[in-house]
């Protein structure tokens, strides 16, 4: 049966070649879009690591004040805002807060191992304001001010990437200095995750560095540019203006901008999902186009072979066999195209082109194969049924 199908296909190689090319390209396009979709889904399932819903973000831009003056104003700002009854907590941090394009990253070293890692400078109130989940060790407290080390809390992703099963709490490593001879970074805790770029971003390695305003050794530097404010439940946006007035009285002449994290998240995710939506629409159109084309061509091909069908029926083939033959032909065609497609698509996980997990590619490939077969059967079913219905007498009469 299969050999017979091959012969039939080979006899009509010219028109089949065009169909195969179409199916091949459809497979590749589907694979591309589905890989992207699975990548997003895969990321979405990993924990975000923080609670954004009651957090407001205030950006601070100062003028020509000296670092020490800036820090002084920042401290007074933090105290003043915290004194409001509506406010649960206030924390100072570097500019790369969640749902912004800002990014700080560098290598994190441990012995001869290194992984690219995001880093964030935070103070001791950060964990309670962002409601981080600590899975090992502890969070920063005032003890760290007397520590000779750069104290960090790392994410589980960083722990998995560099330390595997080794205990990490209290470990002193080279960290981002990369200086293995004189390691200065001390790990004091591990958090579940901290996906700064939102739900759809990869759960990348990251670490939080402890900073405090009173640090005399750091007098030339201002580590913080942003205030995060956690408000109590039920506080509305009407409170914003009051906050701003308080803040601008203390930070005179500074540019202050306040936004809520949920609204930052909405606009950030809109941008993050836009490519997927556009590609899906374009892909959907291309596949629909191909499906219609295949349907038309198959219909026409089967109509042309009425005499062949008549002959087969006359010598005793059941109508079911005719149906199976036509659907079988299309499936063999689809299989050839898919094998070719897998050969091309398989290069992505094999060569690790984009650093995406292999499981994402495999899932995308599996679903693409399924959709292409469904498409092929769907396009072949109706014309094949028409063909199977043909009475031998009518078919032979046509000739």
């Amino acid at each position, binding site marked *: 049966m299969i050999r017979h199908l091959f012969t039939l296909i080979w006899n009509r190689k010219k028109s089949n070649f065009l169909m195969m*090319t*179409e199916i091949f390209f459809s497979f590749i396009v589907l694979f591309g879009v589905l890989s992207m979709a699975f990548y997003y889904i895969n990321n979405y399932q990993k924990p975000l690591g923080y609670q954004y819903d009651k957090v407001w973000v205030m950006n601070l831009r100062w003028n020509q004040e000296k670092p020490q003056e800036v820090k002084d104003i920042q401290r007074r700002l933090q105290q003043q805002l915290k004194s409001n009854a509506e406010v649960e907590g206030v924390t100072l941090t570097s500019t790369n807060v969640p749902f912004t394009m800002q990014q700080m990253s560098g290598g994190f070293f441990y012995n001869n191992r290194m992984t690219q890692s995001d880093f964030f400078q935070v103070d001791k109130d950060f964990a309670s304001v962002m409601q981080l989940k600590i899975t090992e060790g502890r969070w920063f407290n005032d003890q760290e001010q007397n520590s000779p080390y750069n104290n960090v809390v790392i994410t589980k992703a960083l722990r998995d990437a560099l330390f595997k099963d080794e205990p990490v709490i209290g470990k002193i490593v080279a960290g981002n200095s990369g200086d293995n001879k004189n390691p200065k970074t001390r790990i004091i805790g591990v958090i579940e995750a901290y996906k700064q770029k939102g739900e759809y971003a990869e759960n990348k390695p990251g670490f939080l560095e402890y900073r405090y305003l009173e640090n005399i050794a750091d007098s030339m530097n201002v580590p913080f540019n942003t205030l995060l404010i956690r408000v109590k439940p039920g506080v509305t946006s009407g409170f914003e203006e009051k906050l701003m007035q308080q803040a601008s009285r203390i930070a005179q002449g500074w540019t202050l*901008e306040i*936004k809520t994290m949920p609204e930052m998240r909405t606009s950030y995710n809109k941008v993050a999902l836009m490519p997927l939506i556009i590609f899906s629409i374009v892909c959907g159109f*291309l596949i629909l186009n191909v499906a219609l084309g295949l349907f038309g061509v198959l219909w*026409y091909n089967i109509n042309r072979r009425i005499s062949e069908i008549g002959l087969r029926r006359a010598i005793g083939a059941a109508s079911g066999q005719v149906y199976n033959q036509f659907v079988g032909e299309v499936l063999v065609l689809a299989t050839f195209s898919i094998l070719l497609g897998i050969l091309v698509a398989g290069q992505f996980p094999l060569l690790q082109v984009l650093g995406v997990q292999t499981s994402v590619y495999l899932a995308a490939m599996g679903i693409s194969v399924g959709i292409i077969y469904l498409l092929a059967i769907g396009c072949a079913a109706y014309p094949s049924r028409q063909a199977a219905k043909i009475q031998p007498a009518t078919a032979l009469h046509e000739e």
Partner: protein
Amino acid sequence: MDHGQSTKAMLKNYIKIAWKVLLRRKFFTFISLFGISFTLMILMVTTAMLDHATGSHPPETRLDRTIFIYFNKMTGVKKGSLMNSTPSYYYLHRYVMPLKTPEKIAISSNFKGVNSYVNNKRLSLDLKYTDTNFWEILEFNFLEGKPFNQQDIKNANKVAVISRHTRDQYFGSGVPAVGKTIIADGVSYRVNGVVEDVPISRLNSYAQVWVPVSTANINKADTGLFGEYMAIILAKSPADIPKIQAEYQHVVKQIKVPDPENFDTFRSYAEGILEGMFVRQLFGDRYGDNSGMAKFIAVVTLIVLLFMLMPTINLVNINVSRILERSSEIGVRKAFGASSRTLIGQFLVENIFLTLIGGLLGLLLSALVLQLISNSGIIPYAQLTLNWRVFGIGLGLSLLFGLLSGVIPAYKMSKLQAVEALKGGQL
């Protein structure tokens, strides 16, 4: 005269036949039209987006003779160091303003987000610091009032030009605002003029509040090359642009790298929006002068070709089937003495007819989708427009492939003996 008459009649006849054929095979017709019109539509929408971001639209109306300085770049090959950021006001004032070849040079800041409050509700506004040349190089559409002048810059007057959206939100829809006071970023500005909204994709001109550059807190003592400003340069004519670029490169080459330990070269370019803002950032050399425009064009062409490939194969496939299906008709016509030329002529007309209908549908679809995108507010204040040149190219390509795939099989068929064609002959 007589000949012309008969050709005309024949053409009319062919179109009639074509119409009948299209109606007879409704499904095939639908597939062909769907393929042509949707492919054209996606092509048109994509180019409309690109044109929207980089083409000439108010207020950036003279892009053929306008160039921009967006980025300063310092690199050090030895340490692999790189610093790429917008220029400082000091840099632009010291090195760009003295250029002799341009007609006018404007300095403006990157826009920054500021807060304003109306009835306890926050109004997030984007604010830009500009000089007076900014208003002369760019042609804003003033709804009321006028831009601020040299005197305002000199005295650092707290005056502002605001957008229609800002006026409607702050003072009420359509309420005249000139002379009134708006508080943004905790500073009171007197409104000097109101302009039509500018979409955010036009980063050179976009803002919602524009105020004099002298009111910004610029540290006069700071001589750093990097900051938050950009320059817009208007040339006397498009032909002058290479002269300006050469003069600018001459100036840039003489600038000493401020941190020779880490960096060895300083670079900066005056160029168009697409090249300076997008292409150089994505495809440009890390240590060289090449902007990567050639690479960019190659990549875009490849993507467009890949995208066009599938509908094209589909079109060819359908066309070949359509012609084969009509072999018996060709046979009959041959048997009654029609020449190959007449037959090919007929199929040519049929194909062109079909493609033109597809093109028309594509045009309608594109207009509809562009209207939908413009109204949806995905890109605030954007008005996307059809690009006729791209439409022409798209239509031309579908004609070409339609003809190749429709006429070649028809030609082969017309060469067959009438008897074979009647039997549905093999090609």
